[in-house]
């Protein structure tokens, strides 16, 4: 993981003027990689339970809870909303470009994919809400 990015994230999290030793920074970078592996493996377990081969957003969120990082779940959901909106915007921009290039068939299949995603999204959100209420 890029050192500059890791350092920036750490600096933004800590109070101004705090020094971070090179050792500490590289240790955090290693820890971050281990975190990704751990989270991926955990999320994959949820996917397998659901008999799916593709890791999805719900799996990652479930993994966070399993790993005792529930505090991440709410902010992650918020960011996901923004991300999905951004992606939709980008897709629409691309669609416009494609229409000009005369590939209507592609657009149709992409639209279908979006619908499927939307359906799944709704289901997942409902499931998540139920868990939170409990």
């Amino acid at each position, binding site marked *: 993981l890029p050192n500059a990015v890791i350092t920036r994230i750490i600096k933004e*999290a800590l109070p101004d003027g705090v020094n971070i*030793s090179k050792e500490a920074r590289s240790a955090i970078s290693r820890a971050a990689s281990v975190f990704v592996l751990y989270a991926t493996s955990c999320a994959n377990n949820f996917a397998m339970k659901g008999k799916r081969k593709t890791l999805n957003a719900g799996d990652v*969120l479930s993994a966070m809870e399993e790993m005792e990082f529930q505090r991440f779940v709410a902010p992650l959901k918020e960011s996901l909303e923004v991300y999905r909106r951004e992606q939709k915007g980008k897709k629409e921009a691309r669609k416009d470009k494609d229409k000009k290039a005369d590939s209507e068939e592609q657009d149709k299949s992409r639209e279908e994919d979006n619908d499927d995603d939307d359906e799944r999204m709704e289901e997942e959100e409902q499931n998540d809400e139920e868990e939170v209420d409990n």
Partner: protein
Amino acid sequence: AEMAAARLSGTENRLVSLPLSRIRVIMKSSPEVSSINQDALFLTAKATELFVQYLATYSYKHGRGKEKNALTYTDLSHTAEECETFQFLADILPKKILASKYLKMLEKEKRDGEVREDDDEAEEEEDEDK
């Protein structure tokens, strides 16, 4: 079109700073994982950022580095050992020990071994094999 391009190239107010491509590489190194949905990739990257922030602030708050206005390796290693949530990091953040202390420890073990010959003979032989 110009505005969109500017937004994509700008580094301010990005939703996530860690590169998704790099995160994907790490995720894919797990043998059981076949494919990763784009949303899942994004969430993992974002979660990793939150994790870095959490690890840094927790270690700083609970560590002694604070006395010198710094975050040190020892702070992190302490966190891995003491806090259950971060225990999965214990192996990669081992406690450091001064070389001199380590040598003293070895000497002490040797001396103890000489006093209790019967018990420790087998152990010492194993150590030598290592």
